């Protein structure tokens, strides 16, 4: 639809600009805050222009500082966040692909039961089963470890279901053609199914990476050691609460840092992401 009405264009631009301002202003404030010293920020009125302490604050945030609350370096937290988000995303995709492959292409006893068992867990988010899961993880001595942070979050009914639906749309003749070509099940999986699902995999990776990165409740429970904090928990721990003075400049810098990787993943994989959601290459 192409319309040429200046007033309408103005109006729509205005609305969009307003939207951008509403979203971007807090980010800007966070950035401004991260360029001042802690004491400058808490003065009223708060400065609205960037100050001169950018490098200082950001390096303090990245490599550790001496303020109140947690003092763990954000660089390490980011690494932990990144590693667990990667493990969660890759693990989820790998397990879901394989279980969907089994459910769609193999006839085994109680196949339907297993499918429904997986499907039912869709209705059980982490929060519902968090008590027993914590018990299991702690009994297995997985607290404060990558395994503890990731394994309970890896099983994914959503992704299994998504891949199942996708596999069901792959024509049976492809399976038969590859059988005649002499490809065994795993060969078929690797040579045919995987390449066909790559856009879905990319879309899922973006979603799951952000899901893993943004985990809050679960890491809050299983990490008690500063050296295993993911960055989201790190921010929380920096705010010491009570009357103690918080290093808001460093907290803001950390918050901005924590936003960068998921933003990067979305921006870099945008094309794939949209493609995966919109069309299945056929």
């Amino acid at each position: 639809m192409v319309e040429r009405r200046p007033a309408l264009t103005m109006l729509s631009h205005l609305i969009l600009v307003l939207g951008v301002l509403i979203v971007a202003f807090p980010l800007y404030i966070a950035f401004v805050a991260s360029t001042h010293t802690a004491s400058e920020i808490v003065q009223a009125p708060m400065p609205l222009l960037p100050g001169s302490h950018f490098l200082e604050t950001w390096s303090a945030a990245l490599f550790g500082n001496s303020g109140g609350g947690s003092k763990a370096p954000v660089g390490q937290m980011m690494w932990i966040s990144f590693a667990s988000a990667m493990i969660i995303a890759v693990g989820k995709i790998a397990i879901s692909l394989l279980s969907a492959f089994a459910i769609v292409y193999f006839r085994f006893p109680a196949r339907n039961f297993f499918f429904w068992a997986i499907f039912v867990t869709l209705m059980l988010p982490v929060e519902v089963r968090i008590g027993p899961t914590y018990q299991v993880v702690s009994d297995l001595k997985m607290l404060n470890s990558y395994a503890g942070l990731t394994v309970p979050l890896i099983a994914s009914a959503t992704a299994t279901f998504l891949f199942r639906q996708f596999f069901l749309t792959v024509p049976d003749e492809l399976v038969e053609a590859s059988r005649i070509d002499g490809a065994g099940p795993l060969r078929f999986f690797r040579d045919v199914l995987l390449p066909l699902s790559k856009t879905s995999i990319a879309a899922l990776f973006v979603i799951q990476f952000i899901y893993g990165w943004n985990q809050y409740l679960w890491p809050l429970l299983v990490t008690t050691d500063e050296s295993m904090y993911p960055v989201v928990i790190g921010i929380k721990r920096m705010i010491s609460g009570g009357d103690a003075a918080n290093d808001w400049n460093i907290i803001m810098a950390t918050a901005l840092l924590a936003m960068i990787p998921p933003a990067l993943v979305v921006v870099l994989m945008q094309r794939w992401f949209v493609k995966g959601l919109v069309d299945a290459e056929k």
Partner: protein
Amino acid sequence: MASISLRKVVKQYGTGAKANPVIHGVDAEIADGEFVVIVGPSGCGKSTLLRMVAGLEEISGGEIAIGDRVVNEVEPADRDIAMVFQNYALYPHMSVFENMAYGLKIRKLPPEQIRARVDKAAGILELSHLLQRKPRELSGGQRQRVAMGRAIVRDPQVFLFDEPLSNLDAKLRVQTRLEIQKLHRELGVTSLFVTHDQVEAMTLAQRIVVMNGGRMEQFGTPEEVYGRPATTFVASFIGSPAMNLLKGRVDGARFVIGDTALSLPQPAPREGELILGLRPEHALPHDGQAVAADATAWPLKVEMVEMLGAERLVYGRLGDAPFTLRIDGTDAPPQAGASVLLKAPAERLHWFDPATGRRVD
């Protein structure tokens, strides 16, 4: 190259009381290098039979042998067959070259040999300039050729075709039909071709298997199937428009349908209840002059006439029985409601037993 033997082949889904048989013991011997078409209406088990030869369906009973080897328990890949599917089943993410080479790659042929074989097949099928394309960039006919190329490069003992032409438009279908014929002449590989289209069956086949309801009704050359149909089903399935089948009683030299008696040009093989078959193109309309004199002519009451260009179809009734007549398009069309006199050549009459549907000679 090899012959194919089907011995009492049975297919059923489920077992015991819930068993649902779909193929009831098919016997056929297909010679080395022969082109055999399996034809029948949908649901007659023709595709199932083909898929059993391919090894994609389990064989519930009987034996299938390719060459001298019984293949009941042999994996599809090891049966030395190649199959062309109805919707081509090309791998969408692979180029034409990769599609054709995939089976060879799995069989671990050296790359230069794969290259050579694919190039040769692509040359035969005029695909050489398309080798780097993806299937979605090809037209239907080209995809069809790639699917055939994939079969050819494997250099199999048997080609299996599962309705490969049904997704093509009419013009392309004719063209591809000719190409398949040419290919078979060049390669001489034993071929089994499934279709529901009798024109494809008649034009391609050296011998035709006509199937109905999981049974083989007739196995013969196109001439035999058309000229001497073994059952009423074959009679009505092969040939278009279908053969007229008149149910009645033979009484001496007359054939009685309800109240109408038709005189027979030659005695029927036996007395009593029989079905008389006569193809629309074999009944001859009488010319106007001699009519009154000839008492052996059959009066056809015309109900409707269809113009098809080269020919006209006249629908009417002989007594109570519906009857279709095919006449030349240039003849003066009979009017609806008028009566046309027919002459039935003795050698064109077919007789069938009404109870079994089998041919009576």
